[in-house]
């Protein structure tokens, strides 16, 4: 399963990179969303998959899945949501102010830094 997941993660990263390098702001933001999904799955896979019961002591299982990556991912999900929301509003405001969402046109020029 981990081998399969490694390829899934790779594809997620690939699509994310492609989107981040494109011109439209919206696609860049979608790219960052995909990137965080990939990163979360990468963390989870690194810790090993399906090693035991869910990390709840109530399960009273002989072994549990590693709880540490899960705690990390939980934090990461919330943070990436914050970042995505911020990006979206930034794109909205930038479009309102500057009238474009094209990164090529948004680039800073000499004397305009």
């Amino acid at each position, binding site marked *: 399963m981990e081998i399969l997941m490694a390829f899934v993660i790779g594809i997620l990263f690939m699509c994310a990179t492609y989107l981040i390098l494109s011109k439209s702001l919206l696609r860049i933001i979608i790219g960052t969303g995909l990137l965080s999904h990939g990163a979360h799955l990468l963390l989870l896979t690194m810790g090993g998959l*399906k090693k035991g019961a869910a*990390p709840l002591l109530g399960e009273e299982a002989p072994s549990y899945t590693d709880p540490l990556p899960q705690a990390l991912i939980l934090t990461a999900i919330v943070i990436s949501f914050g970042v995505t929301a911020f990006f979206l509003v930034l794109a909205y405001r930038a479009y309102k102010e500057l009238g474009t969402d094209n990164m090529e046109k948004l680039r800073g020029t000499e004397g305009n830094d």
Partner: protein
Amino acid sequence: MSLLHLAIISPFLLAVLVPILYKLFKKVHTGWFILPLPLVLFVYFVSFVSATSTSQPIIESFTWIEALGIEFTAKIDGLGLLFALLITGIGTLVILYSIYYLSKDKEKLNTFYVYLLLFMGAMLGVVLSDNLIVLYAFWELTSFSSFLLIGYWYDREKSRYGAQKSMLITVFGGLSMLGGIILLYIMTGTFSISEIIAQSDVIFTHPLFVPALLCILLGAFTKSAQFPFHIWLPDAMEAPTPVSAYLHSATMVKAGIYLVARMSPVFADHALWLWLIAGFGIVTLFWGSFSAVKQTDLKAILAFSTISQLGMIMSLLGIGAAALHFDGIDDKYHTIATTAAVFHLINHATFKGSLFMVVGIVDHETGTRDIRRLGGLMQLMPITFTLAIIGSFSMAGLPPFNGFLSKEMFFTAMTHIIDFNVFQLDTWGILFPVIAWIASVFTFIYSMILVFKTFTGKLQPEKLEKKPHEAPIGMLISPIILASLVIIIGFFPNILSVNIIEPALSAIMPEFLFEVHISFWHGFNLELWMTIGVIVLGTLLYLSLAKWRKIYGLFPEKLALNKAYDQGLLFAQNGSFKMTKMYMNGSIRSYLIYIFAFFIAILSSVLFSQNAFKIDLEHAADVRYYEVLLVAVIVIASVAILFVKSRLTSVILLGTVGYTVALFFVNFRAPDLALTQLVIETISVSLFLLCFYHLPKKRNEERMAFKATNLVISIGVGAVVTLIALSAHSTKLFESISQYYVENTYTEAAGKNMVNVILVDFRGFDTLFEIVVLAIASIGIYAMIKLRMKGAK
């Protein structure tokens, strides 16, 4: 920490107080507060004279940077003491002079004296440190203080130009010296000069010997303005004249000579050392004196004269190294070069110091230093004229002044070069006395120009800004003291030989026992005839100066070193600007490409070079059919985002990916993650939909090349991440710390949900800061939606 250390850092301590003293006592010239310090230090260092001339050097040590084995070891031996006396002695006179030279109402005295004290302390540190790293630190500090003092009148463009030039050249040399120091450390394992000298046999056979020698010499040559690095010194003359007298004539420019003398016991056995120092020295001697003759600014004449005299001392030190190949105690000709170097070092400080002060007086009282506008000042400024005569005649090597004695010794050393039958000195050595003699003729000419063009001839009051008159007595005290020394040393040269010169020589050449006796009259020998020849030919050439001056015009402007420096600087500036523009082009996409390209390059090369890639199929979990289904969904959805035209579809596809990830979490026994992911994904998608309503519908067109670049980079990133994911799963470098949480969740935190306990208890602060991040993001979002900038359209 001893009294000696305190003496070295006392100028820094006083420098801290200067701004306060300046503010508190506005009516008193700040210089009066500074003056006692160098005087006290001078007296303090004089007390070491008997100790260094009879016994071992005095060494005081305290640990500075323990981890690197760097000790601030202060060491006083003959050489260090000679320089310390010069620094404090000339320092006292220069500060006294500056009190009358710089007006307390017009100048920023606080900064001036802070810089000057900074220099004094740094210079003492250079000559009294036994540790090379400490020496280097102080060495660079002298460059900085010199930079600040040259740029003291920073509103003048020429000052800024000169300051930058001196900084670039001397710091370049300093860095190369640091390289040499590190090479010495690699060879010997110590930064201590005494210990390095003790290991000179090891160093001599080491393959790094020559690189270390070259690096150290580069530092010395740039600092002491040796050809072709001399170009910074004439521009440094933009500094106030007391600074020129102090830094750029008597002390700082001699730091290179100090370094050569100090490192002689380490390197002097090698032919390269002798030839480089003697060769560069003699070329500098000639070029400096030749260029001085064409100058019209009095200070420029003195600057080139200083370059030339530094070259002379340098060449003497180089030739002196030949003595190491003889048992030379019985033959005084072998050691006379080094003796002459040390003796002339002292003499140069006295006559050149007084000459700079004389030129400062002329500048101060007439408002110009241009010899084309000056003339006939003899009657108006008789004392200054007398001082100028003494200084210049000593510089020209005329009796009965001290310059005559060292010039004679110089000739003796040069004419005996051919007697040495080492390093082919017996063949090529003949060039040295010839060049030395020619350079002395030019030295004679510019010395005469300095005196007679300024003080004799016709007075041209209409070309002067002020009505000239004799300087105030306070300004004359310092040059009078120096000029008296010129005469006293001239008549009684041996007052210095036992106590000052001999200890200094034994520090440069520890193998020898020196008995210096300088006598005034040698009879009619070759040296005296050479001096007479210099006077005769020099006088003839001085009188016919107007006729042959044209030869200076023949020298092509394009070949001038200054031009090369300016062009080089411009080229470096433009080049680096263009280079920066090339990659810092303001496009975020380019920056991201750099980041991703580095990501691919570095991670894949590490994976390859460390042989880190590994696949472990045995410990992998099994694959179920519904998992394959989920994989298919997530792959199809994410790839589809790349191709769909409609923005709405791509948002929905992103949602699909998110919800599939949540399903993966369920499948991988992570219920908390699944719940969070579901909630967050729902909010995210609705936020996307809200925002995309406001964003433009038109998709930006991308060309094929653009897409191809993106594709290559993204495939690279995907491949590297896949490899890392596979290797990370297959490699277990150490035991996970997770077991601790599994065991202690209930006992320590009384919770049964491990993930929750980790978040709110074990790593509670992480969670707190996560909330802070969210709060900051929401404030930002609120601001972007609600606030309107003033003047926004």
